[in-house]
């Protein structure tokens, strides 16, 4: 079916481009030239190009020209105008490789499609989709979605060993959506949206219902453009038990313009990706500024895939990583539909080359301020043909020479665990660490606990440095059995260099016997807590929005220079509820029936049974003789 659709869409595109005028092709080239100009004037990030003269923009333009279809001048101008007004979208892809101190390696793919259109405008019905996937576009317009963030994760991100990820995500599936304020029935839209998304991504998102959906009152502010933030239009749900496997990756790859055929997405092979310590794929859709003046909106679709390969299972214990070792593929070309296709390798810890050696060497370096730190990256621009060398393949190789020192502790870190014993009560402990030496900053902790763990909020205590720490804002919505989970949000000020502990006691509920899953002895999952904070940054963050910032540094909008926004997810909890023995009804029925049958039956027989002597039956000859005798009227035999 994929081949069919691919073939059909190609036919469709060819028909349309042959009908369009050359002015449409000019418009595309003009857009490209604009971005080219911007690249040369901006100074952050600085492109230290030791070669000097070769500009990537010229190659980009040349690339575009070679893939243009022959324009047919036969049709009128009316069609061409509507065509130019309809689709102006661009696609960028990038891969960031960051070697971690523990010997593992972190690869982060980001694919961004930017489209200048408005789904929510009433008069304009969007019907021409080019790079933006049609399935998502239809979902956005049908359910009046302002922002959509969905992620599927396998594994848990270890902040203490790996640092902060570019885009955090909790284990399992997480979905949070901001609806437009014209929606009247948010819950109905939410229910239908989860069903449609579960069909698109082949996941069991239809298990999201009112019992695990919450409406946070201060967390999860929109990441895109917007004025009003009425939290009535926000819904958040998480499914910690959701498995991620090839059947989720396949539809995710189908949303990409180049599919899995060209560009960076050829590296996405499921056998290698799922044999890793951490795998997370996400889709983020939000409205963003079209340009620096920010006069009009554009829709941005970001597909991100974060994966951490383990030194021992994937790396066979040797500290030597290459694209072929990680993905069992090498890069052969950039995606022809992409305006930029780059690979960044983090070499901040390796300024003189004493820690590891990177080959093929590249003169292009780039600096970016991301996660509060200024990092240096080697840039491989895949749109340049000379990247691929004689063999037409690019295989990056990182070979370690020395031992890396200790990692800097991350500034914000959180843990969560269940304390207590028995199957009746327990205690949830959430521990948040602030490792900054002298700055205190506030964090917003959001906890969503299912209704079958009945929290006792009067036992809630927040202690920092063994003293009571009163939160400046608490929002608590109690659970309603079988309707609504608990929602607890607190704004806590973390003192510098301290550990803050939040404890709350709970009681486990006994469920109705139909509500147990087929395997209740596995336990029940409680979703991760979310800690959102504005962490003080070591270097000044970049508050200007520019088109050519690398994708990994432009995900979260930055409002002030001195801090950056970070979200940390804790571990999900696995809690045992008191489980009845499901074999007991069968046992009870057997036992009771046996007792009744044997005991009562024999007693009844003893009381009511009477014995009679039975005449033995005569043999056949005698019976016949008796019959003849009866006819004759003669007395019968014995």
């Amino acid at each position, binding site marked *: 079916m994929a081949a069919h659709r691919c073939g059909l869409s190609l036919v469709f595109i060819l028909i349309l481009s042959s009908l369009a005028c050359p002015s449409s092709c000019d418009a595309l080239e003009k857009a490209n030239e604009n971005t080219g100009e911007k690249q040369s004037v901006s100074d952050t990030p600085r492109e230290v190009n030791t070669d000097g003269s070769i500009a990537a923009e010229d190659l980009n333009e040349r690339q575009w020209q070679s893939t243009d279809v022959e324009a047919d001048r036969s049709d009128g101008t009316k069609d061409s105008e509507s065509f130019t*007004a309809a689709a102006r979208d661009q696609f960028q892809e990038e891969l960031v490789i960051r070697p971690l101190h523990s010997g593992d390696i972190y690869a982060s793919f980001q694919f961004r499609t930017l489209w200048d259109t408005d789904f929510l405008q009433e008069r304009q019905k969007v019907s021409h989709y080019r790079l933006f996937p049609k399935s998502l576009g239809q979902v956005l317009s049908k359910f009046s979605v302002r922002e959509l963030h969905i992620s599927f994760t396998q594994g848990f991100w270890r902040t203490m060993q790996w640092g902060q990820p570019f885009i955090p995500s909790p284990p399992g599936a997480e979905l949070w959506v901001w609806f437009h304020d014209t929606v009247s029935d948010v819950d109905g839209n939410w229910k239908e949206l989860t069903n449609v998304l579960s069909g698109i991504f082949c996941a069991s998102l239809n298990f999201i219902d009112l019992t695990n959906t919450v409406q946070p009152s201060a967390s999860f502010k929109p990441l895109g*453009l917007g004025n009003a933030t009425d939290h009535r239009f926000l819904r958040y749900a998480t499914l910690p038990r959701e498995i991620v496997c090839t059947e989720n990756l396949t539809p995710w790859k189908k949303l990409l313009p180049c599919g899995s055929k060209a560009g960076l997405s050829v590296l996405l*092979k499921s056998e290698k990706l*799922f044999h890793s310590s951490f795998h997370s794929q996400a889709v983020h859709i939000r409205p963003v500024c079209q340009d620096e003046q920010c006069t009009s909106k554009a829709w941005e679709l970001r597909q991100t895939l974060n994966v951490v390969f383990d030194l021992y299972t994937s790396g066979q214990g040797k500290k030597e990583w290459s694209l072929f070792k990680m993905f069992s593929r090498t890069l052969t070309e950039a995606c022809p539909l992409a305006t930029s296709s780059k690979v960044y390798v983090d070499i901040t810890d390796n300024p003189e080359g004493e820690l590891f050696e990177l080959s093929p060497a590249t003169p292009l370096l780039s600096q970016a301020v991301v996660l509060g730190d200024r990092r240096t990256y080697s840039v491989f621009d895949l749109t340049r043909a000379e990247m691929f060398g004689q063999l037409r393949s690019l295989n990056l190789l990182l070979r370690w020479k020395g031992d890396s020192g200790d990692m800097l502790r991350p500034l914000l870190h959180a843990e969560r665990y269940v304390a207590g014993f028995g199957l009746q009560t327990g205690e949830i402990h959430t521990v948040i660490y602030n490792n900054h030496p002298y700055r205190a900053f506030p964090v917003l902790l959001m906890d969503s606990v299912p209704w079958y763990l009945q929290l006792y909020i009067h036992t809630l205590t927040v202690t920092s440095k063994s003293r009571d720490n009163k939160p400046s804002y608490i929002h608590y919505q109690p659970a309603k059995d079988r309707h609504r989970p608990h929602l607890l949000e607190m704004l806590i000020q973390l003192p510098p260099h301290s550990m803050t502990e939040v404890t709350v006691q709970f009681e486990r509920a006994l469920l109705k016997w139909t509500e147990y899953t*087929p*395997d209740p002895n596995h336990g029940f999952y409680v979703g991760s807590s979310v800690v959102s904070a504005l962490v003080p940054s070591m270097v000044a963050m970049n508050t200007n929005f520019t088109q050519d910032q690398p994708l990994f540094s432009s995900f979260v909008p930055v*409002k002030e220079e001195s801090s950056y926004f970070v979200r940390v997810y804790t571990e999900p909890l696995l809690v045992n509820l008191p489980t009845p023995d499901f074999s007991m009804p069968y046992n009870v029925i057997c036992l009771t029936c046996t007792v009744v049958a044997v005991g009562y039956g024999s007693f009844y027989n003893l009381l009511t049974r009477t014995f009679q002597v039975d005449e033995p039956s005569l043999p056949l000859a005698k019976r016949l003789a008796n019959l003849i005798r009866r006819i004759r009227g003669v007395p019968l035999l014995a």
Partner: protein
Amino acid sequence: MAFSLDTNCGLLNHNIIGPIYCTSTIFPPDILITQFWFNYRHVANTLSVYRSVKRLGIPDSHIVLMLADDMACNYRNPKPATVFSHKNMEFNVYGDDVEVDYRGYEVTVENFLTPRSKRLLSDDRSNILIYLTGQTGNSHGGNGFLKFQDSEEISNMELADAFEQMWQKRRYNELLFIIDTCQGASMYERFYSPNLMALASSQVGEDSLSHQPDLAIGVHLMDKYTFYLLEFLEEVHPASQANMNDLVSVCAHRVSVSPGHHTDLFQRNPGSVLITDFFGSVRKVEITKDTINLTSSVKSGSGDMQIESLTYVDQLPVAEIIHQKPKQKDWHPPDGFILGLWTLILLVFFQTYGIKHLKHIF
């Protein structure tokens, strides 16, 4: 399952552009119903039939695949994202483009018989193939039922009734039912709708055996019946002329238990029914040279674009959060408990003091 008992439209839509016609639409659901790691072979069975069916031309939009447990990305799988059907890990049936429609807890009797979402839109020209594998009642109990997730079951009467409903609503043209479990023949004993053909891996009273274990993975990889079925299907190509009699006979003499088949309800002679009628799909493509008129898209009307100040929202506005007014809760009418309490108080009051004292109070 390929039908629904009410007539709402499903989620699948066919994007047909241009003059392409589908003939003999075929809808095969593949269903696997057991949990736990040691039932790895059931997943391998289902996936191998799924693979054959896809290879012979049926698109994913016409297949419903239900897997009750996740074997490929299970933590016990030494090679994640793979499911092997032959030992020494020769043949990965999981592949790279599998689409599972129902997985984990979604595989229930209710979703099997009446799916509320992700259903197929079959009509009276569709041929349906249903492949079930799992565990039936065998030494664990009676026969005539199939276990779902170890906690539910579907009986052969329910299946027969479901097929009859499908027939009444004209949801299939011909149906082939294959079941690979112990005592599989007991599941099709009660069928009574026309145009049904059923194949089972074992008779009543017999057990269906598994084929080969793999020492690296540690469990049995496939069942014997499906193994030979897969071997047979590997030789079938979309234009093959093999018929049902070949299918029935290839599995008969090589396995130690005797598979059963039930062709009485089928109107055509099994010898004239092609395998590809159920397992494959051929699409006729008609090319046209006529001009197609495309409607122009609606004008964007961007004349009155609002130049509102568009800004990003502050991610953690501390001051705003602290001074957030508590939300006005909607007024709800008093609960039943409160009403009952007040009624009780009033009743006791009037009982004690009597109605005639009312005028002193009001």
